């Protein structure tokens, strides 16, 4: 019984140590503005690829229209957030601006894909899927321009 209580008080001390450790780690997690932008670009690239896949799968009758619409909505929300963060970024303009442009094009392509799926416009959806594929490639080129991750 006494052992159990002493284990519990050790656990409580452990919890305190964890909080201190977490605070130190959070404080040490300093990244350059370019690195932060690169991290954001990964999430943007992931959404561009998701939208492209959703479009292609919709064209292949593998997913319903409602899924394409809700995926485009979620992607739009995250891309809006990414656009806001990129706009506030302290990174050099020659690094930041091309990414902002890419995000804005991805937002437009996502919105168009959503409209195309809602209107059952298959050629329009195919066009947007192709546009998203090209945006994905442009994003890769932008990331490579920043050097190794």
């Amino acid at each position: 019984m006494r052992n159990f209580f002493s284990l519990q008080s050790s656990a409580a001390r452990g919890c305190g140590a964890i909080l201190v450790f977490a605070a130190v780690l959070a404080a040490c997690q300093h990244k350059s503005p370019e690195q932060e932008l690169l991290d954001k670009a990964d999430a943007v690239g992931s959404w561009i690829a998701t939208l492209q896949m959703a479009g292609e799968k919709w064209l292949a009758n593998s997913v319903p229209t409602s899924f394409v619409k809700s995926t485009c909505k979620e992607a739009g929300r995250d891309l809006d957030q990414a656009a806001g963060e990129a706009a506030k970024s302290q990174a050099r303009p020659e690094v930041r601006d091309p990414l902002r442009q890419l995000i804005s094009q991805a937002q437009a392509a996502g919105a168009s894909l959503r409209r195309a799926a809602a209107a059952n416009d298959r050629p329009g959806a195919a066009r947007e899927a192709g546009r998203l594929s090209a945006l994905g490639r442009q994003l890769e080129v932008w990331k490579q321009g920043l050097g190794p991750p």
Partner: protein
Amino acid sequence: MNMKKATQLALGIVTAVGGFFDAGNLATSAQAGASFRFQLVWSLLLGTLLVIFLVEMSGRFAAVTRKALPDAIREHFGFTAWLVPFLVLTLVHFLVLASEIGGICFALHLVTGLPPAVWALPVAVLTWLFLWRSTFGTIENSTSLLGLLTLAFVVAAVRHHPPTGELLAGMLPSLPHHDPAKYWFIAVSILGSVIAPYLFYFYSSGAVEDEWDPSYVNVNRGIAFVGMGFGSLIALGAIVVAAVVLAPRGIEVNDYHQAAMMLTDAFPFWGFVLFAAAMAIACLGAGIEVALAMAYTTAQTFGWNWGEDLDPREDARFCMVYTAAILVSSLLILFGIDPLKLTLVTMAINAAVLPFVAIPFLLIMNDRKLLKEHANGWISNSVAAFLLVLALVLAVVSIPLVIMGGS
């Protein structure tokens, strides 16, 4: 082994296979495969090995003493000593239950297009109704048999012919090539999803409900090793499918929408519906188990009547606990909390609270007065010692990893 025990063994294995996979396994496996391909398979294997031993111990304990774990821990260490672990575990179980309800709601959103929040209360009522009206046997068998639908991930993985060399290499721990904070966060979350504390409390209470006695020690061993082993194959299947389908496209799973198309390459027509159905059933089964585990633990802690086979009038407080737990958990989803983010953070917290589960559990498993010749031997104790060290390490690193890698 007589016919009754053979049937129980078979049913138990099916239950373990069907009950292994839940929102936590799905979320962490999809994220691991999509972001790091096969590199985190080792984490799943390690978790599986540990959970096999822990489930075996909790079943052995219940069969030999005819007592469930929380009941025995309270009796052994006293109410005051058990109170802190009980409160911590209740809070974690509440988050796990919310994650499972969120998983069902998301699956319904996939099929209907309605927002997940709309489904929160109907799902809560359905889950509650299932618990209120069913016996333990019905719950155990129906959810586990339906849960076999999750084997779709294994079939899909086989259809994709994953690269064997890379898959085998992933079974050994290695350092990540990129994003180390995310890598370790997912590794910890996988362990948290596999070694879920509710599993032991549910399993040991279930063994008492099924009236196991010492003659069931071998049946228990078979269920733990074969059932849990095969169960982890489903999670492995999900890692493989995500690695083969999502990773090459550059899709990372930061939202359930990004995982929902995982099965459509292997099953172009049925893949989407299969994913939704597998997710709904896996989460429903786990949600029911978590709600019951909460009710079992609370009733055993306070010495109330308990048993899913009793009429609700005979164990009103037991029924009240799962009713309140389901209702309150569903509110998190109703208020719009993202189910995937909730699940991932909850799995890391699961890992963080492991010492609260492991310490009293392992102390009691070595009590020779209680367990006699069935107390832990050197193999179980070696695994237990390793688990204890791992649990302490996880407790230290998991919360910082949530801050660094869980965003």
